[in-house]
């Protein structure tokens, strides 16, 4: 079948799309295998052990990761910490979104004061975005110690960098024509922001904020393990004690929280977008 097509292709004097396609797939496949072997070598990863770990983990989880009589009384404590983590991710996202919104206005093509400021804004955003939040957390732990604020600022910096860039892109894409039109009528900057940018891009910005809240809940669990706060701290505590019943409840609580947040944001997005 393929031979036939190759012949047709050669008759036309160029490669057939099928030959090209086959070569692309082969190339992708071979590079996957090569990367896999190389990476296994570097990390001492044992593929068979990896596959065997799944049934092992499954059986172990069914046996041990079950809430028991001693874990139920921990529900109020788990709930309190879950609420703290949820509120932390909302607070972080809202604060960084507000800061990022005003900061990104300086970086947009349409609103920026001048190209130098615009460039500087992007570089500052890139700085905050490219430093992982765990680095911020480890740095903040020096001064804040195990405190919710180290988690707050760590997530704040990372979210701020990310949202600034996203907001710049969104505003440039969505509001450019409205802004130009408003500027042409002689509107002041304040009028342009309140009458042009906010109405036209608010739905998209809200969608991003909701998305970042989801992401930040996951990140807050991890950061909480480092900073000793919220549900991450509780997970670490029960885990180190080997209190598997309580660990299972914590995992369940996190899963429910994330699914609920996802569902709410999906519903909101459906209406506003």
């Amino acid at each position: 079948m393929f031979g036939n097509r190759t012949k047709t292709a050669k008759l036309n004097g160029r490669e057939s799309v099928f030959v090209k396609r086959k070569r692309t797939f082969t190339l992708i496949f071979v590079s996957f295998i090569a990367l896999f072997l190389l990476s296994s070598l570097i990390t001492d990863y044992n593929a068979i052990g990896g596959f065997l770990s799944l049934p092992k983990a499954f059986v172990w989880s069914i046996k041990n990761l079950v809430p028991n009589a001693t874990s139920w009384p921990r529900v109020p404590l788990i709930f309190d910490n879950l609420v703290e983590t949820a509120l932390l991710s909302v607070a972080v996202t809202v604060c960084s979104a507000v800061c990022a919104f005003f900061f990104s206005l300086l970086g947009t093509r349409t609103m920026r004061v001048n190209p130098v400021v615009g460039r500087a804004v992007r570089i500052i955003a890139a700085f905050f975005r490219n430093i992982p939040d765990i680095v911020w957390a480890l740095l903040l732990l020096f001064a804040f110690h195990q405190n919710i604020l180290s988690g707050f600022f760590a997530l704040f910096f990372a979210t701020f960098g990310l949202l600034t860039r996203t907001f710049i892109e969104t505003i440039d894409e969505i509001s450019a024509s409205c802004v130009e039109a408003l500027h042409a009528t002689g509107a002041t900057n304040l009028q342009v922001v309140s009458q042009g940018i906010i109405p036209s891009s608010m739905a998209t910005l809200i969608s991003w904020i909701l998305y970042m809240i989801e992401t930040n809940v996951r990140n807050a669990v991890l950061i909480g393990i480092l900073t000793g706060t919220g549900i991450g701290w509780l997970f670490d505590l029960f885990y180190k004690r080997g209190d598997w019943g309580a660990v299972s409840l914590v995992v369940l609580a996190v899963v429910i929280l994330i699914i609920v947040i996802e569902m709410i944001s999906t519903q909101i997005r459906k209406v506003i977008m």
Partner: protein
Amino acid sequence: MGDNREITNFTALNSHRCVRMTRGGKIKTGADGKANLVIKITIIALLGLTIIGFLTFDYKDTNIFTAILDTFVNAGIMFGTPRLSHVSFSGAMEQLLVTFALATLATIFGAVIAFFASLLCAKNIANPIVANVVKSFVAFVRAVPTILWVFIIAMSSGLGSIAAVVGLTFHSAGYLTKAYAESIEEMNEGAIEALKTSGASFWQIVLQAIMPSSIRYMVAWTFLRFEINFANALAVGAAAGAGGIGFELWMAGNQYHDLRELGFLTYIIVIAAVLLEVIATKVKEKAG
């Protein structure tokens, strides 16, 4: 952490919104009452939750202003005078390579699993019942944060590269399944229908219609996921002690209390992340 980078791809989907259109293509005029109301309620709810958060947080009587000032001084030491003292430069590079490799393995496994799973749950080719079951399962897998997967695997297999790779793979597979399925669902119905009526088998449809039209998106998503996995591998190394340069970060910060080493390792990571982004952009351009 790390899921952040997926944002980039989102934006493209939400462009051209200056003119709001109805489903029928008419331009919406006047106030879009319901949407505006929901936006207002959302903003008020989020602000309310933020205020409640700040009022209820336990600040453990830290002096915030001294702590902020100290952090500025610390950041100055960290970024201004980076120096390695407990780990050698070659050791740090080796650990960086380990983190890369962990991310690569998780991405490859995630991509392979997600490819087959997405064929089972893309609306236009899968059985609707199977699709719903797979989608719900994938949603559950995605809801458990990566770090918890790593700990769960570590409970039975011990902490090491297996726990890290398998733990990272779970979330990658869940995430990529959703992304792949969406790119398959976006493709032209006609091509699949035409192949179906001409009697093509399922795998012929996959190889001749779906793969060619979706491969670009799939490659783009996979690269994005690799960047996320790199960040996740760092985080998992730091929080779970699963090895790699993330673990070195944690040692420098939490065990040796060495700001300068933390700074040097951070520079290594940032340079690696930027290089990764440049390479990813190049590959995406080529694939596109």
